[in-house]
């Protein structure tokens, strides 16, 4: 067929004219998807604003239950991972596949550190009966400082926001493991690193959302 150009490199899908077009499309598609994500979290942020306006004293009281130190550590961990994912892209652009794999590995590890810390935070809270919805059953040491009839709503929002964010971190880890394996098989080079680039974009958004979540949930007094 005349519109089947013979010079297609292997990584270019049949319906693209060339590598550049494929790269640009993938990148635009990812940006559109990120807009999506922002609106998705936007709904949660909106709920946060409304309920904070309804029950301002609840929010300041309940935030004291959250651990600023570990929240802060997690923020630094995620910012660090944003740096390493950017370095991974840089390595790919320079055709340094070893560097690409090392940077991906560090990013994956940092993401895991984030989740482990998050796990211990959740664990501690659930232990105190600070659980979402009808599992809400606060221990006496919690009710001593947090005495509000709607206290569970704050934590419902907390669990929804951090839970969905955590799910995004998990998806990011999965994607980066996939990239790591593919990089090992020699799929990427300076000519073709589109999946690395767009996963990087996604990962920056995941970080960015946490950067909003952290002060809004942990640092209000």
């Amino acid at each position, binding site marked *: *067929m005349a519109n089947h150009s013979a010079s297609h490199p292997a990584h270019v899908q049949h319906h693209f004219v060339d590598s550049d077009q494929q790269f640009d499309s993938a990148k635009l*598609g990812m940006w*559109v998807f990120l807009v999506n994500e922002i*609106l998705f979290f936007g709904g949660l942020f909106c709920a946060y604003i*409304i309920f904070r306006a309804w029950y301002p004293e609840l929010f300041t009281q309940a935030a004291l239950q959250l651990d600023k130190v570990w929240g802060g550590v997690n923020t630094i961990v995620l910012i660090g991972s944003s740096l390493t994912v950017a370095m991974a892209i840089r390595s790919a652009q320079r055709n340094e596949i070893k560097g690409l794999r090392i940077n991906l590995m560090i990013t994956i590890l940092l993401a895991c550190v984030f989740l482990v810390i998050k796990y211990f935070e959740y664990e501690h809270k659930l232990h105190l009966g600070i659980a979402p919805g009808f599992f809400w059953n606060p221990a006496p040491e919690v009710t001593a400082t947090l005495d509000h009839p709607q206290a*569970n709503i704050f934590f419902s929002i907390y669990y929804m926001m951090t839970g969905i964010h955590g799910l995004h971190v998990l998806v990011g880890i999965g994607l980066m493991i996939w990239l790591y394996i593919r990089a090992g098989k020699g799929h990427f080079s300076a000519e073709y690193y589109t999946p690395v680039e767009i996963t990087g974009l996604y990962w920056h958004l995941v970080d960015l959302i946490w950067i909003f979540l952290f002060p809004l949930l942990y640092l209000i007094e």
Partner: protein
Amino acid sequence: MAITEAKKMTTLQVKRFKPSENPTNTFLTDEKGVWAWMTTVDHKKIGIMYLVAVAFFFALAGFLAIALRTELWTPAKTFIEADTYNQLFTLHGAMMVFFVLVPSIPAALGNFILPMQLGAKDVAFPRLNLASLYIYVAGAIFTFAALASGGFDTGWTFYTPYSSDGNGAGVIWVTLGVFILGFSSILTGTNFITTIHKLRAPGITWDRLPLNIWALYATSIIQVLATPVLAITILLLSFENIMDIGIFDPALGGDPVLFQHFFWFYSHPAVYIMIVPGFGIISEVISTFSKKTVFGYWAIALSSLAIAFIGFLVWGHHMFTSGQSAVATTVFSFLTFLVGIPTGIKIFNWIATLYRGSIDMKTPMLYVFIFLFLFSIGGFTGIMLGALSVDIHLHDTYYVVAHFHYVMMGGTLIALLAGLHYWWPKMTGKMYNEKLAQISAVLIFIGFNMTFLPQFIMGAQGMPRRYYNYIDQFTPFHQTSTIGSYILGVAFLIILYYLVKSLFSGEKAPSNPWNSRGLEWQSTSPPDFHNFDHTPVVINGPYDYHKPMEEFQLGLAVSHEGHDAEHAPAEVDTTEEKA
């Protein structure tokens, strides 16, 4: 400026590719068998599968509608229980909105036509396209699971606290179903935006984009911006049901009006997700069957974007009686009037397109006229509902029911029928029976008005919506409406009959039965697996009926990197040559 322009120009060698009237190799012959269809990434096959799925849900939800109308034949019980009635209208509404109207034009017809109008081989992300179909199916399975676990009777709007206090598993399943379904819509939108930006054939600059593409572009923007908000809303609602998180349920300190805000922040824009692609079809059909350039190209193109934008600012008009602040209601009322402007601009431009055209009253054009008539009534009554004082009286009456049926069925569905008849020969390679098609179009027009005009009158007289019983004085109106719905049912059966028949014994369709100048018609019927067996090159606007057909059948003569649409061909060599 002139220098940089000149630098960007590339010279393309083109020649004429006249589409064959007897294609031996088409997308239907290329990959055969159930498995090939189920795993295909071809936008045309995916579009057709979407069409079948949408038709299935339309039949199902339509059948429910007939049952509902039959129940309303008498003021008291006719044949079903009140609780069943509540479940049936909920199911009817939810299916028609989420499973039929939202995906119908973009995912079914749009999927087929959009890459062809752009001269592309496929959408930008073919695998995501297939994924969106499977996500749709998954959403459908959840909805059937909801039915199996006791059903749901909240109305398609899922208002809390109806949907949050102890409704059982049904509501959880269906809301999760709608949540999942949203992603199929998001994927389609993402795909279309990227395809329109990056996959245009050489010469298709933004001012040569068919209006159908502009409409799908505006629609995709709404899908991408609004659907995630529905997703999070529905997710919160599900968690409200699963574990009482207290966000929306007033009994737990939550805010039910917040649910309504969230819901309508999606669902008002969603009504434009439904109607704007219909506008696109109308523009294509009206130009083809008037043999004339569309009047006010930019006005029509940009008004779609204006509608997409203003559509995000009016959601509060559904909540005039929900305890919104008086300031908010006034502002929302005012903004609602603004939406009428771009819509009106479109109607006037279409009518101006008809002026002095050589109008050919084929079935698609018949549907365009039906659309103009019905949609205008729907739009005007929308403006009336947007007027605060009037809406306090009309809210939650049959007047609203009539309004949205005039826009959704009289608008979107009629436009879908116009598009289906218009592109049927291209999609299937077969012609349908024109006479039967015209008869059923007329029956639809009659049946539709019989069904829904009386509802305006009843509504204005105070008949509330979603009621199982009514007072005797409304009997004649309800009965007229029920008879109308039967006529509609018959008309749709006729359509089903002749369309299916055409597949088996229809006349073979020529490549361009309507003599359209649209790029999608410059391929074989049905198209080749790659849509065109050359890279199309476009040098004219999509509606330049004053130019000869040859100029619309050009393609790259040599293999060349021609994806960059901004580079208009400066030198075009139109040597006559048969492909």
